[in-house]
């Protein structure tokens, strides 16, 4: 336990997430990962754009989508992005309790988003009988939006695990990079959602 002191310095550096070599590596590693994720989502978006008119006689995007719910979901996710910015601000102020509080709000907003998405899919399946197997449009839609939803689920599990595991530790140079990389990932989820609400819902409504 000889490195405890170096991980718990008396004065926190200004960027605790990048103060250790491990932190720097985690920071770069996550950005590398996000570069790859960009390509992954691009292939799903490309597939969706190619297949969005192949409805095989089933429901089309103009029949299905309602803008109200999508607007609420967008606000929830956008606000959760801001609350995780606040959490990182409190990390820089070395205020662990407030950071955990803001992250808790982020988690709640993320769960609310997820609940809306589950309701939306449930609604499509039961009201319109629009499923993954309805048409090529259905497969492309559920793959793209579902993949994003899966990322939200993963992000929430990551966040809750981080918060619970470090609750008694307080902020130190060992876990600061972990929190910081999570916040980057969470912002990226919002980036993807911006394109989903634009390309899938708004452009789908336009026809």
């Amino acid at each position, binding site marked *: 336990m000889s490195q405890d002191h170096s991980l718990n310095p008396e004065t926190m550096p200004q960027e605790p997430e990048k103060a250790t070599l491990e932190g720097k590596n985690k920071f770069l590693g996550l950005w590398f990962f996000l*570069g790859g994720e960009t390509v992954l989502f691009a292939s799903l978006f490309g597939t969706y754009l190619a297949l969005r008119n192949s409805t095989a006689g089933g429901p089309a995007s103009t029949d299905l989508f309602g803008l109200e719910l999508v607007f609420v979901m967008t606000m929830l996710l956008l606000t959760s992005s801001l609350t995780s910015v606040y959490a990182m601000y409190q990390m820089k102020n070395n205020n662990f309790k407030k950071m955990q509080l803001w992250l808790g709000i982020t988690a709640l907003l993320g769960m609310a988003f997820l609940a809306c998405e589950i309701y939306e899919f449930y609604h499509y399946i039961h009201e319109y009988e629009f499923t993954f197997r309805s048409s090529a449009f259905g497969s492309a839609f559920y793959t793209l939006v579902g993949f994003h939803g899966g990322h939200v689920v993963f992000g929430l599990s990551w966040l809750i695990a981080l918060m619970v595991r470090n609750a008694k530790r307080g902020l130190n140079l060992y876990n600061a990079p972990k929190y910081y990389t999570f916040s980057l990932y969470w912002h990226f989820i919002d980036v993807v959602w911006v394109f989903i609400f634009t390309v899938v819902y708004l452009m789908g409504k336009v026809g």
Partner: protein
Amino acid sequence: MADNTNTNKVNSYHKQKSKDEMKKQLISFALMIGFTIIAFGIVATDVIVDKMFIVPVLLLLAVVQVAFQFYYFMHMKDKGHELPSMMIYGGIFAALLTIAALSVIVWW
């Protein structure tokens, strides 16, 4: 359990600096909300009828909003983000190629 010497000591210069940063991030959040409302408004109110015009406008609004997200929320404008920028722009390059390829296939 390690001895937890966490104090709330933060250099006041740094504190002010991150406060200013937070203000900028709040402004970018307000702008992002604004862009979102404009985008939804355009589609909900049918102010623009021409489809050839509405789609590029929506995409432009999305790109600007995402730029704010990357540069302000994810700090890509700060120094020490050369490699992250390279990764993201590399990703965007491959993404554009992918989307272009898949859309062109449909035209054929």
